[in-house]
C-alpha cells in the first residue's frame, strides 16, 4: 500500500474528528440567526465535549457492561464509517473495506447497541426510546439502502469512492437522471431522520412524549455522554459528506494528486456551509411531527427511493 | 403332499376343536394346528419356488407364485392370530363375554375359516373358488355375532345378507363364465378350470365375459368391501371379537380380491380392452375417497381401522385395475404389507380396548406409558398403515402412486386427496390414544408380544430390505397377471 493514500486517510479521519463539532456549531449558529437570537460561537461544541470528558460518570445500578461499552462501539463504528466515505479524496485505502451497504450496516451497529443500552437500565424511557428508534430505523435504513443502490446502479458499483469518481468524471447527461433525482430527495429525508433532526426528532427536547434518540441516552453522563454526543456530530457530518460525495462530488480530489486537496477542501467548506443553511431552513420551516406521522414521512422516503430504482430499471 | 396337509390340518383341527374347544389346552391346539398349516404352506412355497407352478389332484388344485404367497401369508397371519387370541379370548371369557359353547364354536370356526380361505386360494376350479368364498362367509357370520349383543347380531345379519346377495351375483357371473366356456372347452369340469380358461381366454366370447365380469365384480367386490358395496364391513369388523376382525381385515379381503383378480385375468384375455381395469379403477378411487372421509368421523377404534381397510383395499383394487408391471407389483406388495400391518394393529387395538374396557377412542389414553408394546405397537402400526417410511406400505404406495402419474395422471389428485385425508384422520385419533398420562381406569395386563413384534418386523423389513425371493415371486405373479 502506497504512502500517499494512507496519509490521505489519516488526514480525512482527523478532519472528521475536528470538523464535525464545527459543523454542528455552524448549524446551531445559522439557526440562531434565522430565529433572530445571538448565537454561541462555532467552537461551543468543543467546549461541551471537553466539559463532559472531565466529568465523572454516574451509572444506574442496573447498568451492565453493554451500557458501558456502547459509547465506545458507537464511536468506533462512526469513525470507521468516516474512513470509508470519500470526503476530500476518492483514493482511500479503507474505502475498499466497506461499500455503501457496509456503511449503512456500520451505522446500524451503532444504532443497535444504542438501542440495547437504552433497554439496559430498565426504565420506561429507555425502552420507549429504543422502541421508537428501531421503528424509525426499520423504515429509514431500507430507504437509505435503496437510495444508495440507485446511485450504485448509475455508477455500476457499490464502492463509494467508485461512485464519487464516476459521477464526478461524467458529463451532465449521465448525471441528470430521474432515478438520481428520486434518490436524492429520498436521501435528504432519510438524512434528516437518521441524524435525528426536526421534523422527525428534536435533539434539543427532553419531553418524554416527543423524544426518541435522547430517551435512549438519557442515563448517560460524563465521558460516555461525550463520546455519544461527539459520535452524533460525526454522524451528521458524515451524512452531509455522503450526500456530497454521492450527489455533488465535483471538486473532490482524484486518485493520487495531492495538489487537488486544497481545492477540494474549499469546495467542501462551501458545500457544507450551504448544506447547513438548507438544514436550518428545513428545521425552522417545519414543526416536529407526531410519532406516527413520522412513519408516513419515512414511508414516503422509502417509496421515493424504490421509485428511483424502478426508474433506473424501467426507464434507463 | 404339503397341499393335503395345508388343507387337511385346519379341517381336522376344526373338527377336533368343535369338541374340545372350551378346554384349557384348546388355544394351544389352535396354535399348533395353524403352526402346522404354516409349515406346510412354507414347504409348498419352497416347492413352487424351486419347480415353478404346479397342478395337483387331477387339475383340481393349481399353485403358482400368485396364490402361493397369499397362502403362506394367510397361514402365517392365522398362526399369529391364534397366538394372540390365546390370551385375548381367555380374558374375554374371564369377563364373561363368551361361554363354553362360545369357545368351542370360536375355535372350530376359526380353523374352518382358515380352511375355506386356503381352499379358495389353492383351487383351480372357478366354481369351487366360489363355494369356498361362501364357506368363508358362513364360517365367520356367527363369529361376528359371538357376543350376542343387539349390535353384534345386527352386524352379523347385515354381513350375512349383503354378502349372500353379493355372492349370489358372483355365482351368476360364474354361470355366465361357464356358459361362455363350455362352447370352447366342452361341458364338464374342464370348462371351469382357471388354467384352461386362461389358456383359451382368447377364444371366449367377449360380450358374455364382459357381462359376467359385472356380476363377478359386484359379487366379489362386496366381499372385498368396495364402496358402495362396503356397508357390511365396518359393522362386521367392529362388532366381532378382535382376532376375527384381524383375520377378516387382514386375510378375507385379500382372498376376495384374489378371486376378483383371477377372474379379471380371464376377462382381459378375452376382451383385449382395458374395460375390466377401468371398472376396478373406478371402484378403487371411490372406495379410497369415501373411506378416507368416513375415517374423519370415527369414534370406535375398530370401526376406524376397518374403514382404513376399505381404503387400502381400494388402493390395491385401483392398482390392479391400473395394470402395468409397476402398479401390479405395487398392488401385490400392498396386499402383503397391508394384511400384516392391519392385523398387528388389530392385535394392539384388542389389547388397548381390553385395558380400557371400551372401544371408544376418546376414553383410550396414555398407552405408551401404560404398556409400551401396545402403545408403540399401535403408533408404529398406524404410521405403517398411513404409509410412512420405512415401512413396506410406503414402498407399495410409492410404486402405485408413481405408476398412476404415468398412466392415469388425472386420477392422482383424488388419490392424493384420499391418502392425505386418511393420514390426517388416522393420526388425529391415534396420537391422543398413545400419548399422555395413564388414565385412572386403565388396567395393566399381560399381552401377547410375539405377534405384534413379528408383524411389524416383517413390514419394516419389507420396507427396508425386500428379500430376493419375495421380489421374484412378485415378478412371476406380475407375469401371470399380464
Amino acid at each position, binding site marked *: 500500500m502506497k504512502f500517499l493514500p494512507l496519509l490521505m486517510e489519516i488526514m480525512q479521519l482527523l478532519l472528521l474528528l475536528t470538523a464535525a463539532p464545527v459543523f454542528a456549531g455552524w448549524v446551531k449558529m445559522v439557526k440562531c440567526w434565522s430565529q433572530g437570537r445571538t448565537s454561541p460561537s462555532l467552537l461551543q461544541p468543543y467546549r461541551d465535549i471537553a466539559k463532559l470528558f472531565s466529568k465523572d460518570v454516574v451509572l444506574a445500578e442496573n447498568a451492565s457492561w453493554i451500557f458501558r461499552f456502547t459509547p465506545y462501539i458507537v464511536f468506533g463504528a462512526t469513525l470507521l464509517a468516516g474512513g470509508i466515505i470519500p470526503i476530500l479524496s476518492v483514493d482511500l485505502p479503507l474505502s475498499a473495506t466497506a461499500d455503501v451497504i457496509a456503511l449503512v450496516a456500520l451505522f446500524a451497529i451503532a444504532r443497535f447497541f444504542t438501542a440495547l443500552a437504552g433497554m439496559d437500565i430498565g426504565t420506561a424511557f429507555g425502552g420507549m426510546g429504543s422502541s421508537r428508534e428501531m421503528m424509525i430505523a426499520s423504515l429509514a435504513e431500507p430507504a437509505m439502502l435503496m437510495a444508495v443502490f440507485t446511485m450504485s446502479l448509475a455508477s455500476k458499483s457499490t464502492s463509494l469512492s467508485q461512485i464519487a469518481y464516476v459521477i464526478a468524471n461524467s458529463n451532465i447527461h449521465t448525471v441528470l437522471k430521474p432515478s438520481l433525482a428520486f434518490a436524492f430527495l429520498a436521501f435528504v429525508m432519510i438524512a434528516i431522520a437518521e441524524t435525528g433532526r426536526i421534523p422527525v426528532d428534536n435533539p434539543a427536547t427532553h419531553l418524554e412524549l416527543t423524544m426518541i434518540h435522547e430517551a435512549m441516552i438519557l442515563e448517560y453522563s460524563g465521558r460516555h455522554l461525550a463520546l455519544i454526543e461527539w459520535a452524533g456530530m460525526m454522524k451528521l457530518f458524515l451524512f452531509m459528506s455522503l450526500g456530497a460525495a454521492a450527489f455533488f462530488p465535483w471538486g473532490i480530489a482524484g486518485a493520487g494528486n495531492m495538489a487537488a486537496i486544497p481545492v477540494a477542501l474549499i469546495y467542501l467548506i462551501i458545500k457544507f456551509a450551504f448544506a447547513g443553511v438548507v438544514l436550518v431552513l428545513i428545521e425552522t420551516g417545519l414543526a416536529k411531527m407526531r410519532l406516527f406521522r413520522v412513519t408516513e414521512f419515512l414511508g414516503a422516503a422509502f417509496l421515493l427511493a424504490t421509485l428511483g430504482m424502478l426508474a433506473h430499471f424501467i426507464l434507463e | 403332499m404339503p397341499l393335503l396337509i395345508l388343507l387337511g390340518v385346519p379341517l381336522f383341527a376344526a373338527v377336533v376343536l368343535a369338541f374340545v374347544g372350551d378346554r384349557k389346552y384348546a388355544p394351544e391346539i389352535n396354535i399348533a394346528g395353524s403352526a402346522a398349516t404354516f409349515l406346510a404352506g412354507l414347504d409348498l412355497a419352497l416347492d413352487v419356488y424351486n419347480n415353478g407352478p404346479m397342478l395337483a389332484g387331477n387339475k383340481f388344485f393349481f399353485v403358482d407364485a400368485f396364490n402361493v404367497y397369499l397362502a403362506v401369508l394367510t397361514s402365517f397371519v392365522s398362526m399369529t392370530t391364534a397366538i394372540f387370541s390365546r390370551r385375548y379370548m381367555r380374558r374375554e371369557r374371564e369377563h364373561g363375554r363368551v361361554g363354553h359353547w362360545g369357545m368351542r364354536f370360536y375355535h372350530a370356526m376359526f380353523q*374352518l375359516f382358515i380352511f375355506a380361505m386356503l381352499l379358495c386360494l389353492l383351487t383351480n*376350479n372357478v*366354481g*369351487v373358488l*366360489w*363355494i369356498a368364498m*361362501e*364357506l368363508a362367509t*358362513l*364360517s365367520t*357370520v*356367527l363369529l361376528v*355375532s359371538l357376543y*350376542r349383543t*343387539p*349390535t353384534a*347380531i*345386527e*352386524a*352379523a*345379519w*347385515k354381513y*350375512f*345378507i349383503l354378502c*349372500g*346377495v353379493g*355372492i*349370489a*351375483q358372483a*355365482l*351368476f357371473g*360364474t*354361470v*355366465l363364465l*361357464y*356358459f361362455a366356456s*363350455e*362352447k370352447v372347452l366342452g*361341458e*364338464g*369340469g374342464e*370348462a*371351469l378350470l382357471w388354467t384352461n380358461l386362461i389358456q383359451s381366454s382368447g377364444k371366449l*366370447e367377449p*360380450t*358374455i365375459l364382459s*357381462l359376467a365380469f359385472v356380476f363377478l365384480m359386484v359379487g366379489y367386490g362386496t366381499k372385498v368391501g368396495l364402496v358402495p358395496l362396503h356397508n357390511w364391513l*365396518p*359393522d362386521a369388523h*367392529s*362388532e366381532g371379537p378382535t382376532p376375527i376382525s384381524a383375520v377378516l381385515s387382514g386375510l378375507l379381503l385379500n382372498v376376495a380380491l384374489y378371486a376378483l383378480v383371477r377372474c379379471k385375468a380371464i376377462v382381459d384375455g378375452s376382451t383385449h380392452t382395458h374395460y375390466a381395469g377401468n371398472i376396478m379403477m373406478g371402484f378403487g378411487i371411490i372406495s379410497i375417497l369415501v373411506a378416507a372421509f*368416513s375415517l374423519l*368421523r370415527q369414534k370406535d377404534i375398530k370401526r376406524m381401522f376397518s374403514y382404513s381397510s376399505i381404503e387400502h383395499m381400494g388402493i390395491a383394487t385401483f392398482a390392479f385395475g391400473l395394470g402395468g408391471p409397476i402398479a401390479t407389483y405395487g398392488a401385490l406388495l400392498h396386499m402383503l404389507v397391508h394384511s400384516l400391518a392391519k392385523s398387528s394393529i388389530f392385535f394392539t387395538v384388542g389389547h388397548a380396548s381390553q385395558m380400557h374396557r371400551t372401544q371408544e377412542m376418546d376414553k383410550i389414553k396414555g398407552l405408551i406409558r401404560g404398556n409400551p408394546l401396545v402403545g408403540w405397537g399401535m403408533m408404529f402400526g398406524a404410521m405403517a398403515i398411513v404409509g410412512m417410511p420405512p415401512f413396506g406400505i410406503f414402498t407399495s404406495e410409492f410404486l402405485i402412486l408413481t405408476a398412476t402419474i404415468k398412466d392415469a395422471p388425472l386420477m392422482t389428485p383424488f388419490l392424493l386427496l384420499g391418502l392425505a385425508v386418511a393420514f390426517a384422520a388416522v393420526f388425529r385419533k391415534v396420537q391422543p390414544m398413545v400419548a399422555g398420562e395413564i388414565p385412572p381406569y386403565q388396567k395393566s395386563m399381560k399381552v401377547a408380544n410375539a405377534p405384534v413384534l413379528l408383524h411389524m418386523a416383517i413390514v419394516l423389513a419389507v420396507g427396508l430390505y425386500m428379500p430376493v425371493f419375495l421380489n421374484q415371486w412378485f415378478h412371476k405373479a406380475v407375469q401371470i397377471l399380464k
Partner: protein
Amino acid sequence: MDIQTTAQIINFLAAMVLLTAFGMLVQRRIYGLIHLFAWQGLFLSVSTAIVGYAAGRHHLYISAVLTLTLKVILLPYILNVLIHKLKIRKEIETVVNVPLTMLIGIALVIFSYSLTAPVREMSTLVTRSILAIALATVMIGLLMMITRRHAVTQIIGFLAMENGLFFAATSATYGMPLVVELGLFFAATSATYGMPLVVELGVAIDILIAAFIFGIFFFHINTTFDSLDVEQMARLKEGE
C-alpha cells in the same frame, strides 16, 4: 318329443317361474308367499327334469329331484314350522306401493332381455332364452328383498333370487358340472336356512354350518328385537 315342443314347454315353465316371481313381489301374506315359492320350485324342478330328458343330461335328474325335495317340500315346510314357532302367522306386511314395484319389475324383465339378447344370438341351446328369465328372476328377487322389511320375507326373496340362479345354472346351460351343483345346493340351503330338516337328512358339513347359522339367527333376532322386523336393526350407522 321333438325340440320344438320341448322348447315350448320349457319356455312356458320359464314364464310360470317369472309369474310366480311377480306374484311374490306383491303378495302381502306370508303363507301366500310360501305357497308361491313352493310353486316356483316346482316349475323349476320340472323344467330341469325336462331339460335333462331332452338334452340327455341325466345328472340333471338328480338336480331335479333335489330341487323338488328341497324347494318344494322341505323349505316351505320348515318356513311354516318356523312361522308357527315364532308366532308370526298373522303378521300382514305392508308392501310399498304395489304398482310402482310392478312397474320396476317389468322394467327389469325388459332390461334383462335386452341385456341377454347378444348371448341368446350366440347360443345354440334349446333353452337359450331362459337366461333372460333367470336374470329377471334374480333381479326381481333382489327387488323383493329391498321392498320387504320382514326378516322371513327377505329370506324368501333371497330364495327366489337363488331360484333364478339355479334356473340359469341348470336349464340355461344344461347344468354345470356336479361339483358346482353341490355348491348350489349348499348355496340354496345356506340361503334358505332350511337347516333343521336338512340336518335330519344329515347332508354335507357346510350345510351343517348353515344350519347352525339358521337356528341361532332367527331366534336371536326375535328375542333381542322381539320381532323379525329388520327395520329395527339400524343402530350401526354413520350419518345421524
